[in-house]
């Protein structure tokens, strides 16, 4: 983990393989810009996170980066402009975990996950692709849930089923042509208990360690501190800072970002800092 904070000004236009880049990104609903002139470069192999207060534009930013919202400016994935990648191709390059998913019709858990195995994904045998479903369910600690009705699960279990589905979509972090795959996670752990929070963060971190890119919108500052390689702080649609946890987790930066007095502490025997909000 490097300590240098990466500022937008330092970004070069030469895109190495696998990176996710944004230049002068602007997103607006009904013309009022929610994201203003935002630029960054995110390399694969790292766990990137986006932090910021409610309404700061985190989710909007993620939606633009996944191609769900239209934007002006430029977003590239693997050096290719997002707007020119075919939808089917893009689906094999990045998976997206939404905050909430409401099913239209009753499906079993393994049927939901099997939707993630795309028909145009031809890597491996049909049987191997099928086995992914069960391996992915094992990764999110849902072995034995295969035949259960999705609707009957708790919110946290449903969220883990969805993660398994997304993992099936972008199974290997490095594609067979050498390009990197990306995982976009929109508040992946907000409805989970602490054990499964850690588990999901570990899955994401592992995906990055194996060469893929991960970009997650996060709420929990302490969880982020323990797992993230880089942190982007968004406020009022602007990128305040992007850098390592050590660079970003400073009293004044976080207090300013969240408009609340917070204190970053370090505890012996724990590499990640701890953030406490002052109250009273």
């Amino acid at each position, binding site marked *: 983990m490097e300590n240098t904070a990466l500022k937008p000004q330092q970004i070069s236009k030469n895109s190495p393989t696998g990176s996710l880049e944004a230049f002068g990104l602007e997103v607006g609903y009904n013309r009022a810009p929610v994201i203003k002139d935002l630029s960054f470069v995110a390399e694969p192999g790292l766990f990137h996170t986006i932090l910021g207060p409610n309404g700061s534009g985190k989710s909007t930013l993620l939606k633009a980066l996944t191609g769900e919202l239209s934007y002006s400016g430029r977003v590239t994935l693997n050096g290719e402009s997002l707007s020119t990648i075919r*939808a089917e191709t893009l689906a094999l390059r990045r998976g997206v975990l939404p905050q909430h*998913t409401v099913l239209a019709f*009753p*499906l079993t858990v393994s049927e939901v996950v099997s939707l993630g195995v795309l028909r145009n994904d031809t890597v491996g045998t049909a049987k191997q692709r099928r086995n992914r479903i069960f391996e992915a369910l094992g990764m999110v600690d849902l072995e034995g849930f*295969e035949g259960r009705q999705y*609707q009957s699960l708790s919110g946290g279990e449903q969220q883990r089923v969805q993660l398994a589905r997304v993992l099936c979509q972008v199974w290997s972090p490095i594609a067979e042509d050498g390009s990197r795959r990306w995982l976009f996670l929109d508040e992946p752990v907000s409805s989970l208990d602490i054990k499964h929070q850690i588990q999901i963060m570990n899955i994401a971190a592992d995906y990055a360690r194996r060469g893929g890119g991960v970009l997650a919108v996060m709420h929990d500052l302490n969880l982020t501190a323990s797992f993230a390689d880089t942190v982007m702080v968004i406020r009022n649609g602007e990128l305040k800072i992007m850098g390592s946890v050590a660079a970003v987790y400073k009293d004044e930066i976080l207090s300013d970002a969240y408009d609340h007095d917070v204190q970053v502490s370090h505890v012996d025997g724990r590499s990640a800092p701890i953030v406490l909000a002052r109250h009273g």
Partner: protein
Amino acid sequence: MIEISLKRLGAGRMTAAMVEKQPTGMRDLLARQVIFALVVVLILAISASLTIGPIKIPVLDVIQHYLINLLSGSEESLAGINLRDWIVLSEIRLPRTLLGALVGSALAVSGAVMQGLFRNPLADPGIVGVSAGAGLGAASLIVLGGTTLAPIVSIFGIYALPLAAFGGGLCSTWLLYRIGTRGGVTSVATLLLAGIALGAFAGAITGLLVYVADDQQLRDLTFWGLGSLAGASWEKVFAAAPLICTTLFLLPILANGLNALMLGEAAAGHMGVRVQRLKNISIIMVAAASGASVAVSGGIGFVGIIVPHLLRLTIGPDHRYLLPASALLGASFLIATDTISRTIVAPAELPIGILTAFVGAPFFLWLLLRKRGLSSF
């Protein structure tokens, strides 16, 4: 020990193979078996429909004679066949049965596609006013076909009526979608209300047309409201077949998109589905299939709700299986109901729309009540 006995028993080995092929929670194998069974059911329904009626026809016998004569190159292809049987079979029952199959599959598939598109099990061309739009298109052609719309009739001939119904269905489906969709999100409540309003509006204009219609046109129009296959003819089969068959053959391209859509429009987009294109194709297909069936048989309700729903309960909502299974069961269901409707009060005939509504309306209510009981859904 168990392994040995499994190896010895052919059936046991098959079960073992099935277990290996069919992981927990997946219903592919079941769906394939059900589809196979539905093919058999359809064949039985067709045979029954051809055989049963005021005149009992030994269908197999007739077909056998016909084929033997045909293959042996005999000049008299109808040798050995009772002429009356042959005429009843080829001119009355066969077109009627085929029309029933076409209309039944079109209605069921339209319902299934629409439910997938609107992510709601209660969407149906009849309920959301698409059939009313198609009816208006057809009524306009019946009443104004001799005057204002005469050029259309002269250009399209027998296809003018199904095309007019298709146009009417397309307009109302498109309007419905535009009204029900805001910012890429389709509101089902708005959709149903708008569908009722559109249906009433189309009904009002159809009423105006009835007002200006002459006696013959009035008879033609009345037949619409009831919904019946009684007017079946080869002409109608050939008029409806192109639109309906095209739709049925194009269905596989929708299945994966509709499956992804079960997770929502955004998630479907993330999975590589071009959602807007999927919507456009689906709407055109629904309008084509339900328009063509309304054109030849009037308003036959509830098939589009009952059939896909029953199938979802058995084989699950996977559209790769649901769509073909709906086509098969819809065809069998309509052929069977039609056979009942033309024999139950013989020699008179009950309009089939009455029978499907008789079965369908209570089923629909049961569906609503059952849904209310399930808090998780």
